[in-house]
């Protein structure tokens, strides 16, 4: 594989981890978040700072996950007070505050960011292999969560959190758990991104980034892990595939987003469900 293909593949992997994190929070547990990129950023900055200080990747990535999960726990606690659109906007606010703090903090590189992170000792190919391996594990983990009691709890909360509470589901605990796991995954993705870019700069974790992750999850169909993975892959590859369209690339991107959701509101997951139903139809 050429370096170009490798770089694309690893970007796809990072985005899948990132999007699956949001999938858990917004798709499975129904808590739409417009601030996911902030946790991505927390992970990336944690990794960048630790890697610059000489710590190995075996330590930086778990630390990134932990830091993002802690941030996720705090935001999750706040978000317990608000619901639906207010929750979305509260998470958006959290994203802007994260960005504001990072930009103003010289210890975090301020506007300039952090650069000069060394590739892990096993080299670029090894890094890509590690990252893809972890991506597969994350996918398996998410599939597992969905089938577990945890997943049922999430779906119950997503369906109707008042009703869920009435039948004895502690929706606060479930929401917090979803936030922690989802943001930990975002932190992991951020950690990989820091190595991938060999540095971090604040603007990569802004509102636009949060929106594009949400697009991946929604386009995939909120309920479908496969849909989420495919949508993420498509959206990540889109700039590459559309290179020929150059000037019209973002326009096409917007149009695709618009048209897909306008005419296929259940996302790609809905398409699969439709296909399955058709297959099963005659019987």
């Amino acid at each position, binding site marked *: 594989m050429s370096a*170009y293909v490798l770089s694309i593949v690893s970007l796809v992997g990072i985005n899948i981890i990132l999007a699956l994190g949001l999938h858990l929070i917004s798709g499975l547990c129904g808590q739409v978040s417009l601030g996911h990129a902030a946790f991505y950023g927390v992970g990336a900055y944690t990794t960048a700072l630790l890697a610059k200080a000489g710590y190995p990747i075996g330590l930086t990535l778990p630390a990134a996950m932990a830091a993002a999960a802690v941030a996720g726990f705090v935001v999750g606690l706040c978000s317990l007070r608000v619901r639906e659109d207010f929750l979305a906007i509260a998470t958006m606010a959290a994203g802007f505050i994260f960005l504001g703090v990072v930009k103003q903090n010289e210890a975090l590189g301020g506007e300039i960011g952090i650069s000069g992170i060394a590739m892990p000792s096993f080299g670029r190919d090894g890094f890509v292999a590690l990252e893809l391996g972890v991506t597969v594990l994350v996918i398996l983990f998410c599939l597992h969560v969905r089938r577990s009691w945890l997943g049922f709890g999430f779906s119950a909360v997503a369906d109707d959190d008042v009703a869920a509470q009435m039948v004895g589901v502690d929706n606060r605990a479930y929401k917090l758990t979803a936030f922690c796991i989802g943001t930990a995954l975002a932190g992991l993705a951020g950690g990989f991104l820091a190595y991938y870019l*060999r540095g971090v700069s604040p603007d990569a974790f802004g509102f636009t980034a949060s929106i594009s992750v949400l697009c991946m999850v929604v386009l995939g169909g909120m309920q479908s892990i496969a849909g989420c993975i495919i949508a993420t892959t498509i959206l990540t590859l889109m700039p590459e595939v559309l290179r020929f369209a150059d000037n019209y690339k973002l326009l096409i991107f917007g149009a695709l987003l618009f048209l897909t959701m306008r005419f296929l509101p259940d996302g790609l997951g809905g398409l699969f469900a439709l296909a399955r139903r058709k297959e099963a139809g005659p019987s």
Partner: protein
Amino acid sequence: MVSIKRRLLFIAAAIFASHALPAAAQDKTPVKIGFHAGLTGPAAADGLSAEIAVKLAVEEANKAGGINGRPIELVVYDDQGKPDQAVPVANKLIGDKVVAVISAGFSAPTKAAAPVFQEAHIPYVVAIALQPDITKSGDYVFRVGSMGEVEGRAGAKLIGDVLKAKSIVLLTIKTDFGKTVAAGLKGAADKFSFKVVKEYEYSPGDRQFGPMIASIKEDKPDLIYASGFYFTGGPLLSQIRAAGINVPFVGAQSYSSSKFIEIAGAASDGAIITNVIDWSGKTPQEKAFFEAFEKKAGFRPEAAGSQAYASAEVLIAGLRAAKSIDSVAIRTALAATKMHTVVGDLSFNSLHEVQRSFPVSIVKDGKWQSHGVIEDPVLLAPPTQ
């Protein structure tokens, strides 16, 4: 492993080339130069201007015989102003077998691409990205745009020595450019015996500066120095004047677009900047560039376009001087650059940061006009580490 193999191949190629020089002279296969910038998204204004400039430089070079007889082929990719797009773009350029690359991308994408090119040993000429760490990626990275810190020092000299201001207010745009300019300027304030009475910061998205201006009125400065871009500086300056503050307004090259004057209108009169290009266009080279660019683009070149053009000039000269497409040879030739470009005489220091002087421009009669030059090789020496 790969890089060692490639290096061996290059050495072999170089040996082959040196032995078969007459044959190489007949070589008409194009030399590929890569180019990336934000051509869509928020970076598009600078990116498109730079693209026009670099294409212009390549056309002109091809008319003048290309690289020692071989035509130049420009490979252009859009990084959308995003760092995560820049890494695949860099790898794709490498896959396209470019011999060197020009970046007119902003800091974040350029910073992400620089290590990729460094590891592939592909000379990388950075036109406008000002993030200080970019050249620290390694010895294949060169920067034609002056670092913010250096431009800040040039601004300090302009304020203290030329405009004789004693107390100034500093308005810093929250980007790496703004922050580094502010650091350079504040660092040199004592040397040029003026005081920064207050520093304000604002975001690139801001267009309404009322509260800041209200507060500046209280500070009663002799001069306002504001880093920013034409789209912030234009509204800022007209609002400052509308509020009745009539002290000199000084800024950096990022205002050099004629849009700045268009936006600020009459208020722009007398605004002074440390520029990258001498607007009087005294040398035939500059004059020709102005005319050719304006014909192609429909507007006058500003900082991004000029620096991208200069980067192309530097790279093409380097390729010609290297007499081969071996990366080491190109790097060596670039490091030895000492030439006159549209942005003046320039050379690189040990960190491959550019050393050059700053023409000063002033708005008069609705046009940027030449207003002297800040020349001080010691003051304007870029950092070496």
